[in-house]
């Protein structure tokens, strides 16, 4: 259950005779398994006996509390460790016994469960786990409040105030003055009067400190705390048992004050100026404390940030907040680049950061989402970025910005690189990301880097690289601290029950006619969970067995052999039904379940369809529901028919996969994040950073995708994806503990007598690993090594090497920049840390020589390297495109987007099919589409290209997915809306369009770059005169790449998509309703016009005539308002 960080806490425990840290972890985990079993109706069939675990933990809690809180001279780390484990021990055993008889109910603090709940909550805060503390207080409101005597009133107030302090919610009572110690009633005893006075002092200290933390009031805090200290001294001298409980609480509160003072947001080292103070003040209301994971960065790197940092923190441990703090300061005199691996994450980061930085005046957060297609449109580029701006984008998008607008990076103050392990990814993305980072380091003189990752093992090396590249100090933070714990296990069947059921099935099958070979039967589900964390030890005492109380289906098969029957158990096809079954089971027991189907993205829909997420959901019954419904309507508009996701969500189940429309994805995320859906069935795409934590995670199978040739990279990627999935269990503020169960591809069974741990681990090997398991490496490494050895050969370049080669600027003038970029790469620094400049020069030279040879061999002009550089296309692809255009001898250039599109298709048609296939169709299946021959060997029929072009045209004209599918798949209308199999018309068409939006727009960008660079050459070189580009042809060419990516060919629809409504069919509808005036040609003016029109439409001043359905019009407005611009 424990991560490396929490295990480290155990290592810091004080020495107690016979206390073994592993025992403590094991019994805490067993206690959690019992809590889970009680909550979810499981039965624990193996593992430490429950009473033994409870006794152990309560002894441990008492010993550690005595040590942690009440001993002077204990180191801060040791105190936090002991307080956390004491809190965990107490909280996990809360509610394991009934309240003892005879306790007076005069007020809640006299009740054991309440006293221990607040005690444990305060200990959690001392340990640095305040969100855990808040959860332990959930039950205290159910106890009757005391109200009669003055002591009871003061005690209730003290409890409320301490609870608010733990929850960091507003302090009860008025600010600005200390509550006086009330007069007691006439019959109040002296003792009661003293207790009342202590409670009042506790309330005053807790309330004033809380107001200070939340920055709502600074008055009287010192005085209130001093008085509580004095009270503790007085009672210590009196040493009276009758005050022991109030003394105990007083001392705990004082420790909480100490601990939280050090982590108070308001104590963040700050730059001068009121502007920042107002941000801190406003932010302290929602986030008054920095989690322990962030304190080192804050202390070492702020104000500024004045140094770089590489921070490795697990998922859900506060990475985003560190980035926010760094950005909040950097924005004061510059701008911030926020690199994320996916567009989906860019959208989420923009939304979250815009909200968080709302109080920082003059701040703008913009997400540059989209592909990496080349475009000269000013609205799509980072030109002159104003101070106070955060730009969120993928490295691909940033690569374009670096090429187009390097001057903008002069004022860049901070580059946050989230999920920076991306640089280790194969297939070109890693190299590109590394070069982008190096490029930023090379041209942004004042930039500080903040590398963030949940997975890297070696932030120290990354920090050394940053320091070496810039001469500025760099901090490495590796804090595997996590606010939640996860029990990790394997889901299978209980063996005794399985055997009995199989025997019964065998007897039944024996009675059936000979032609019957199979019989389904049910066996009880069971989960084997490890009590430490990762499955590193296989001893039985490290595991507990949970019997889930439900059964799942398996199959008995018989085959004839020598006149007898051979019977065998078969589990093919068990995986997805089991996943759906167990997701249903857990959700019905109150868990928020993330069910992963890593193997196939279309399985997400089929599994989701089999999950029963609970009572039907009325989407009209809440504001969140209405918003989700708006997205469901938007998705249906895009599809041209009701989305099947709508019914799933109304059944409290969502789907998250790449085979969704944007509106479907948003509806899914909202439904799960906001608690309306209980189950999300997701593919591996969810693994990248999105904030969708759950209390239970199920991983359905341990294979990611279908890979015919497994390699080491694939294995690492699969492992990372599965671990990332597992890491999503546990929700800070919702559940302190979570459970993650892997369902192996082949069923496994366990019994209390034979836990079968070895086989279970074999089937779910990923469980042996911790979360952070990737060593940050450079994909440039091999290229650098080859270049330094003088062995680089153009023809044999790998994808990674080709990306590197085309990324770097070519030409005399650009050599120095290429060398500077290379000299700041992780790969060159790793290869020659002592001679970076020399190595960079050698590599740059080698690349140039190879490049020149490459160009000469291709019989292409040298300026084509500039085309590759700008467009991001590989050189061979640029050469092929160049040849195609040259051979076409085009004399009349198109004057609209569709004309350029036709020309693009003509170019592709004229290229060798194998190259087109690699460039446009590589790896995607065209089977079932009219133009399937384009993906096959041999010459395609003439109609294939026409059908392909017509499909894309329909997409760009705003036809619905169903209409496009009807054409592309030749399906008869109405088109089957099923999504469970990839070959059905809708998933087939959606996948194809998504791929084309990315790949074809990239090629279109290549075409645009080719003509634009050619045009520049035409001015200087008569030989290139054929490339001259008149303005009327250039304008639509500029739009072509975006038109393909966005699915909007007309000026109006593209403008509405870019600036008004990022949903294709809806954007077309708005464009028809509010066409762009012809006179508007400038990108900036177009944006303003769209924004103004949109605002008037949202305000109800104008109506969209093309959206006739009032319900749909309202949904569009709701979604548009939610998304902002």
């Amino acid at each position, binding site marked *: 259950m424990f991560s490396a960080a929490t295990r480290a806490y155990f290592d810091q425990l*004080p020495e107690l005779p016979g206390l073994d840290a592993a025992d403590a972890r094991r019994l805490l985990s067993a206690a959690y398994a019992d809590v889970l079993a009680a909550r979810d109706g499981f039965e624990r069939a193996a593992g430490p006996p429950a009473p033994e675990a409870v006794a152990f933990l309560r002894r441990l809690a008492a010993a550690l509390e*005595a040590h942690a809180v009440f001993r002077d001279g204990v180191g801060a780390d040791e105190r936090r460790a002991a307080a956390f484990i004491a809190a965990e021990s107490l909280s996990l055993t809360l509610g394991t016994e009934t309240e003892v008889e005879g306790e007076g109910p005069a007020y809640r603090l006299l009740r054991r469960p309440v006293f221990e709940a607040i005690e444990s909550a305060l200990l959690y805060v001392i340990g640095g786990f305040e969100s855990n503390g808040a959860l332990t207080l959930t039950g205290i409101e159910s106890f009757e409040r005391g109200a009669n005597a003055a002591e009871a009133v003061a005690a209730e107030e003290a409890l409320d105030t301490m609870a608010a302090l733990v929850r960091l919610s507003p302090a009860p009572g008025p600010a600005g003055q200390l509550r006086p110690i009330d007069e007691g009633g006439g019959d109040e*005893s002296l003792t009661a009067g003293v207790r009342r006075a202590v409670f009042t002092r506790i309330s005053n200290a807790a309330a004033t400190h809380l107001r200070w933390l939340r920055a709502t009031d600074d008055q009287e805090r010192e005085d209130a705390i001093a008085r509580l200290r004095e009270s503790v001294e007085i009672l210590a001298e009196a040493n009276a048992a009758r005050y022991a409980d109030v003394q105990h609480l007083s001392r705990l509160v004082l420790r909480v004050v100490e601990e939280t003072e050090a982590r108070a947001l308001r104590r963040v080292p700050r730059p001068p100026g009121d502007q920042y103070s107002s941000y801190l003040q406003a932010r302290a209301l929602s986030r008054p404390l920095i989690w322990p994971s962030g304190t080192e960065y804050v202390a070492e790197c702020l104000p500024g940030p004045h140094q770089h940092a590489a921070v490795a923190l697990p998922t859900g441990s506060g990475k985003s907040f560190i980035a926010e703090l760094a950005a909040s300061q950097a924005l004061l005199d510059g701008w911030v680049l926020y690199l994320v691996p996916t567009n989906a994450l860019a959208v989420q980061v923009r939304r979250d950061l815009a909200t968080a930085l709302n109080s920082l005046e003059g701040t703008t957060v913009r997400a540059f989402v989209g592909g990496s297609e080349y475009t000269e449109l000013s609205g799509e580029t980072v030109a002159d970025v104003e101070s106070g701006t955060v730009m969120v984008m993928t490295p691909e998008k940033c690569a374009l910005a670096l090429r187009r607008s390097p001057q903008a990076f002069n004022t860049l103050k901070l580059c946050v690189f989230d999920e920076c392990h991306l640089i280790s990814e194969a297939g070109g993305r890693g190299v590109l990301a590394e070069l982008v980072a190096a490029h930023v380091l090379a041209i942004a003189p004042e930039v500080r880097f903040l590398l963030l990752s949940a997975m890297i093992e070696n932030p120290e090396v990354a920090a050394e690289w940053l320091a070496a590249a810039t001469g500025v100090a760099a901090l490495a933070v590796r804090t595997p601290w996590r606010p939640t714990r996860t029990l990790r296990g394997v889901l299978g069947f209980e063996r005794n029950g399985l055997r009995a059921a199989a025997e019964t099935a065998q007897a039944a099958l024996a009675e059936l006619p000979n032609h019957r070979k199979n019989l389904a039967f049910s066996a009880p589900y069971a989960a084997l969970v490890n009590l430490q964390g990762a499955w590193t030890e296989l001893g039985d005492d490290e595991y507990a067995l949970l019997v889930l109380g439900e059964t799942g289906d398996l199959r008995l098969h018989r085959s004839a052999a020598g006149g007898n029957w051979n019977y065998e158990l078969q589990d093919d096809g068990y995986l997805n039904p089991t996943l759906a079954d167990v997701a249903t089971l857990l959700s019905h027991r109150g868990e928020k379940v993330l069910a992963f189907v890593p193997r196939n993205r279309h399985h997400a829909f089929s599994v989701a369809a089999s999950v029963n997420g609970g009572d039907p959901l009325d989407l009209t019954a809440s504001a969140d529901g209405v918003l989700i419904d708006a997205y469901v309507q938007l998705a249906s508009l895009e599809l041209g028919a009701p989305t099947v996701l709508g019914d799933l969500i109304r059944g409290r189940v969502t789907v998250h996969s790449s085979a969704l429309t944007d509106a479907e994805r948003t509806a899914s995320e909202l439904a799960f994040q906001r608690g309306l859906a209980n189950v999300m069935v997701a593919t591996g795409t969810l693994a990248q950073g999105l904030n969708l934590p759950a209390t239970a995670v199920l991983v359905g199978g341990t294979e990611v995708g279908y890979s015919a040739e497994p390699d080491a990279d694939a294995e690492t990627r699969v492992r990372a994806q599965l671990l990332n999935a597992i890491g999503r269990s546990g929700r800070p503020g919702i559940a302190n503990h979570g459970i993650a169960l892997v369902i192996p591809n082949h069923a496994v069974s366990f019994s209390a007598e034979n836990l079968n741990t070895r086989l279970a681990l074999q089937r779910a090997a990923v469980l042996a690993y911790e979360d952070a398991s990737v060593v940050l490496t450079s994909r440039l490494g091999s290229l650098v090594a080859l270049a330094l050895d003088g062995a680089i050969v153009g023809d044999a370049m790998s994808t990674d090497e080709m990306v590197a080669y085309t990324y770097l600027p070519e030409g005399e003038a650009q050599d120095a920049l290429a060398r500077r970029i290379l000299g700041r790469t992780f790969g060159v620094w790793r290869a020659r840390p002592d001679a970076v400049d020399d190595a960079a020069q050698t590599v740059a030279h080698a690349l140039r020589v190879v490049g020149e040879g490459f160009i000469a061999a291709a019989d292409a002009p040298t300026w084509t390297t500039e085309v590759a550089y700008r467009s991001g296309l590989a050189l061979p692809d640029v050469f092929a495109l160049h040849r195609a255009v040259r051979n076409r001898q085009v004399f009349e250039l198109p004057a609209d987007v569709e004309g350029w599109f036709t020309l693009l298709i003509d170019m592709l048609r004229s290229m060798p099919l194998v190259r087109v296939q690699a460039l446009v169709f590589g790896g995607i299946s065209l089977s079932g589409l009219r133009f399937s021959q384009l993906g096959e060997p041999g010459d395609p029929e003439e109609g294939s290209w026409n059908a392909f072009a017509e499909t894309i045209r329909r997409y760009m004209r705003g036809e619905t997915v169903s209409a496009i599918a009807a054409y592309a798949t030749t399906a008869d209308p109405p088109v089957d809306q099923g999504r469970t199999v990839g070959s059905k018309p809708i998933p087939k068409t959606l996948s194809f369009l998504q791929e084309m939006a990315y790949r074809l727009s990239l090629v279109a960008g290549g075409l645009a770059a080719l003509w634009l660079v050619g045009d520049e050459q035409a001015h200087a070189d008569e030989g290139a005169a054929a490339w001259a580009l008149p303005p009327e042809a250039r304008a639509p060419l500029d739009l072509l790449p975006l038109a393909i990516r966005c699915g909007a060919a007309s000026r109006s629809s593209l403008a509405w998509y870019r600036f008004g409504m990022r949903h294709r069919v809806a954007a077309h509808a708005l464009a028809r309703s509010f066409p762009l005036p012809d006179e508007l040609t400038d990108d900036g003016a177009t944006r303003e016009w769209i924004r103004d029109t949109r605002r008037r439409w949202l305000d109800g001043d104008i109506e969209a005539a093309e959206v006739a359905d009032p319900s749909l019009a309202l949904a569009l407005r709701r979604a548009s308002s939610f998304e902002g611009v």
Partner: protein
Amino acid sequence: VNIPAGERAARLGEAVAVLAGAAVLDEHEPCPGSHIVIRVTGIESDEAVGALGTYLTGLIAGLVAVDLSITERYVGALPADAGQLRSEVERVVGTSNDVADHFRDTRRNPWIAECLAHVLLMIAGGEPGPCVPGRIWAVTLPHDKVSQQGLDLVAVYEDDSLPALCIGESKASELSAAPHLNRSIRLFREIDARDRDYQIRVVMINSLEAHLPTELREQVPGMFWRDRRLYMPVIGYSAASDFDPTTNRPTTFGELLVALDRRRCVAIELNDFHTFFDGVADAMRAAVDVYVAEEPE
């Protein structure tokens, strides 16, 4: 309560000395099997009863003095009715022995019985005795009213050079001692089940620990961990009843989760049950003047 603390301690010391001389504590042989029985006799003499009155009123005087001192420090002034020792004593044992049976049986006598447990530990004088087989370093004071929260008695004694806990629970019943003893055992079961941990933990850390010598104080976290404890029910009952403390009780006493030598039942068999408790109450009321000096002229 306005006599100096030193004088009060001297009076208490004298009373303890008298009680130590009078009381006889014997371990019953043979052991019943489920627990050890300590029989207490000799405390019904006039001298012992008088000393008990002085001691118990002194305890209340101490509580009142501490509360007054704390109150003064908290609010900067003494309450208007400060020093009303008599009213405190009368609140606990009544203004006379002519009280309702309910008050006598559920308030007064149980409170005196609770104090008896305390006294029995005090008369050991810091030496190992029949009740607790180790030096006692700290004992909680009785509650100021019997219905107050918490355990009757928690003491720390030295066990093999390490601190250990003694938990006492007192009962007084003329003719129904057996069910009362069972109620005590139920409480010890709750302790076994860890339901009373928080009371023990809180008292130990915030009160008793301060009385321990440094070397033992360092061992307090370890004490919780080692979990060494002794149960001491104290039962006052009439000789005329049919209660026999030496009966083997394997399903009650015998199932407690501490070793046999840590299940010690203290049996106070009283020849005249009511006379004894009335006598102690009278002696307490009489002892009020011992602790209240005359106002200086």
